[in-house]
């Protein structure tokens, strides 16, 4: 291994970044720290040994042997961490490539179905429209799933694009609610927004795209898991220069046993499965990862059969 390669190997920050890990979770950095500790303890062991043992040669030999053994153990442990990190990174990259490849044929399918349904190529019979609707709905479900998988792979490889700017939260909420209106109405759900009137236009400085995705995920869950008929309340406040946003629903709620798992990837609560077959189990995982990246927190409380409240707090200016 050339000196340049060795140096490259020690490009700790770069390597850790490519794994999407913080320094204290990164194998290379841990190895470096372990190496430094071993060197320090070896030197002190030698110093103590020569002072208190009669034969300095024996002390040096024992110290070298122990050091070598520690180095080998440390190296093996770190190598295995390294392999695990590499496997995880490859998996995320694989998901990303596959998702990109899937998007093109799906876009083709979506637009072709749209042309057929638009009546531009001739009117359709009711039965035909019904089946084209099934095609359309399922292709958009696949789109959503692919988008979620792409977001997950970006989160895991630390490549999620963040761009902070000033924007009006009021405008964002209004457009989101109007986007959800028909879905909510078809599920017999009313969406109510409670926003402090003094905060107009409620300007904040953060990433509007990412924040919108989080609110979208939470709102979608809230509406989706209401049985028969209900109400979703969005309560938005400026609390000590932090944006505090609550989404309250009176839906099926989350069973006690499932609560510790709900932010895990692909986890779907039993009550959710009973109530809804659709869904990937990625929405809350994505929401939590994004909110933490935006410098905020996400929490919830829930009562089975009575509903759930999710709240997020993020800095108004970060």
């Amino acid at each position, binding site marked *: 291994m050339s000196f340049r390669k060795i140096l490259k190997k020690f490009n700790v920050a770069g390597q850790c970044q490519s794994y999407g890990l913080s320094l204290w979770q990164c194998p290379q950095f841990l190895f470096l720290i372990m190496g430094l500790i071993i060197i320090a303890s070896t030197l002190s062991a030698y110093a103590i040994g020569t002072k208190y043992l009669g034969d300095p040669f024996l002390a040096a030999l024992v110290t070298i042997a122990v050091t070598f053994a520690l180095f080998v153990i440390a190296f093996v442990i770190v190598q295995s961490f390294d392999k695990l990190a590499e496997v995880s990174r490859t998996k995320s990259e694989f998901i990303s490539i596959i998702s*990109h490849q899937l*998007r*093109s*044929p*799906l*876009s*083709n399918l*979506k*637009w*072709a179905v*749209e*042309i057929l349904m*638009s009546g*531009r*190529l001739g009117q359709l019979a009711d039965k035909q429209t019904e089946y084209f609707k099934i095609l359309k709905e399922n292709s958009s479900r696949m*789109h959503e799933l*692919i*988008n979620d998988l792409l977001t997950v792979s970006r989160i895991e490889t630390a490549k999620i*694009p963040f*761009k902070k700017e000033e924007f009006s939260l009021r405008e964002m909420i209004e457009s989101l609610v109007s986007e959800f209106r028909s879905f909510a109405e078809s599920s017999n759900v009313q969406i109510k927004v409670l926003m402090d009137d003094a905060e107009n236009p409620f300007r904040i400085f953060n990433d509007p795209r990412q924040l919108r995705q989080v609110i979208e995920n939470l709102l979608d869950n809230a509406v989706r898991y209401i049985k028969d008929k209900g109400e979703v309340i969005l309560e938005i406040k400026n609390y000590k220069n932090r944006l505090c946003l609550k989404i309250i629903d009176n839906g099926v709620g989350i069973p006690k046993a499932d609560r510790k798992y709900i932010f895990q990837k692909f986890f779907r609560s039993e009550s959710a499965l009973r109530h809804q077959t659709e869904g990937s189990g990625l929405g809350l995982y994505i929401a939590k990862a994004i909110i933490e990246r935006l410098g905020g927190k996400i929490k919830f409380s829930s009562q089975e059969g009575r509903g759930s409240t999710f709240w997020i707090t993020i800095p108004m200016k970060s």
Partner: protein
Amino acid sequence: MKQILIIEDESALQKSLGEVLSQEGYNVAAALDGEIGLRLAQNEKPDLILLDLILPKLNGLEVLKKLKEDKTTKEIPVLVLTNLEGLAEIDKVLELGAVSYLVKAQYKLEEVVEKIKNTIDK
């Protein structure tokens, strides 16, 4: 009749976009790779170009760069239509002078047609 050039390697997408744009009264020309697309743009001088980014032979960014360097084509509005959505690509495309950046997966066909009409009829 105004002309639109579609530079897109997905023939299915070319077909559906072309169909709707022809119905809307535009003359549609199409290219499946960057090199042919650039040549067509230089020869035909269309009123608008729809450009994909991932293209064989010459990628979309290179095509855009060459279009904007050429005196005869630099005024033609270019709408980038792609499935890439990295911030770096968006910034690069807008910096090179494209009118707008549309992610295919996020738009309905009719919305794309509306954007095209708004740009070309300005």
